[in-house]
């Protein structure tokens, strides 16, 4: 049985006086792909940012356990070092700092061979100032490249599929499914294979509004977040997708089963 990688228990988050996340529970095992759906403003990005330890949210109650450690009060850098990575939905621009400058800082911490799906696009971005004048698609390419360099165990993809053209989206999903999903062990060669650790699988939490990424990555669990609460979780993403497409999220809200 796969080990539990992330366990969120009763997580309640406040921003000023407003409760943004309300008693959220979520469990994710090693190598699992989970999807998080919900209308705009339901708290999906807040959950992603809180998992990464980013301000300005206040934790009212609840815990976040990652790799068996209570990381609820950890700094973002400590979480990153532990193996948590976030693709930002709207990453900030940093003037005067090229993507290469940042990659050098990240790479100086972890030595590994980087395999990516578009060397050409990355070569064009490396010498540019981070996110400054980047198109929506370029931002996503840059974000994913940074995460590949960081080599995390759990990757949170906050709307990585927004702003990408269909061809680039398919390339990216193909790369995630066939390459990035498999986490290479730091130990190289036959020794690692013999130990069965060469192709350990990475876990993903995908926040999305689009069907394509779900279709290709086929999440093992899909959750619906509405007004800060997880109101439904299902092993069959297609059932959920068809329901919300036909009836909207309100149908899920009024559904008594709470699980599809």
């Amino acid at each position: 049985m796969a080990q539990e990688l992330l366990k969120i228990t009763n997580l309640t988050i406040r921003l000023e006086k407003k409760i943004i996340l309300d008693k959220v529970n979520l469990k994710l095992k090693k190598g699992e792909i989970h999807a998080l759906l919900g209308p705009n403003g339901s708290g999906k990005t807040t959950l992603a940012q809180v998992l990464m330890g980013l301000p300005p949210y206040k934790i009212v109650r609840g815990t976040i356990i990652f790799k068996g450690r209570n990381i609820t009060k950890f700094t973002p850098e400590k979480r990153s070092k532990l193996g948590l990575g976030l693709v930002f939905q709207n990453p900030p621009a940093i003037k005067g700092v090229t993507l290469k400058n940042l990659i050098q800082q990240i790479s100086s911490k972890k030595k590994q061979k980087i395999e990516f799906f578009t060397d050409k696009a990355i070569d064009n971005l490396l010498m540019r100032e981070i996110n400054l004048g980047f198109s929506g698609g370029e931002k996503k390419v840059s974000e994913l490249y940074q995460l590949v360099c960081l080599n995390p165990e759990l990757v949170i993809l906050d709307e990585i599929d927004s702003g990408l053209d269909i061809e680039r989206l398919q390339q990216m999903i193909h790369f995630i499914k066939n390459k990035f999903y498999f986490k290479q062990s730091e130990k190289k060669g036959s020794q690692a294979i013999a130990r069965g650790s060469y192709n350990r699988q990475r876990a993903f939490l995908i926040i999305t509004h689009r069907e394509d990424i779900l279709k290709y990555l086929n999440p093992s669990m899909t959750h619906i977040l509405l007004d800060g609460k997880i109101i439904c979780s299902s092993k069959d993403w297609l059932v959920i997708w068809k329901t919300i497409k036909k009836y909207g999220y309100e149908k899920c809200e009024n559904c008594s089963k709470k699980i599809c």
Partner: protein
Amino acid sequence: MVMKNVKIAQKKSANFYYLNHTLENLYSPLGVEILESPIAFKKYPWSRKYFDKKPQEGYFIWVKQQPVKPLITCVAISQAKTNQQLQNLLIIEKGIAAESLVSCSALTIGLCAKHQAQGKIILKEGASLSYKHLHSWGKEDYVKPDYEFILEKGARLDYFYQLLNPPKELTFKTKISLLEKASANLNVIMRSKNASINIEEEMDLLGKGAQGTVNLRLVAEKNTKIKAVNKLIAKAEGKGHLECQGMILDNQSSIELIPDLINKNKNSLLTHEASIGKINEEEINYLRARGLSQKEAINLIVNGFLHLNL
């Protein structure tokens, strides 16, 4: 082997190395004359009009032919309580394109030294100069550079000043006079801790078609006071732009920017842009989410702000 390399380097670059009050090294290649200022004052009576007073120490560099390599000037202090009072003169003859690398520094910290440098840099008609000036001091030093650049018709100056380690007190005075069609670009980069810094900068557009830009990037990191007074004066038809950006990293620091635009010619355009602010928290957090510590994140952002990464 090392000595051999030094000899080869000397043959290529003009250099002047002055330590405390003593000339340590001097090399003048063909077409470049380098002397100590008091000697030049005696040898060339015409040079006297450029010195405000009879010099006691300093350098005189006269570039008469196109140099192959940059001119290297290095003034350093190694003894405690040294009080340098330099009078410098650099003359670039007509049509020559020169590059100058200048470093002024204290070799160790805590010397309580004084470094005062008064200099004139003359760019004759059509000459150009790329002037890179680095300062690195100890936290007990007092430093006062006062330079005047005179750009004759069609001359061009690119001046980069960077403060690597701040002294206790720095008074940074610069005056640039531009004659007809001359152009100057002044870039000042300062990142300082526990320092008091006064910048007095003036750019005068004196001839038709003169163009000047001033770009100041200032970071006050810890217990630092920076005051910058920047004058941009148009007496003839020309263009001038002043850009000052400041970043404050703690509550014990302050940055005061005083732009002073004086336009005396109806066909001139003088513009100005300024901002002083704090570091963007969102950027820090973004980098921390990438595994950088808070200190590493701030360092990367500040160096980016100062354009040191590019």
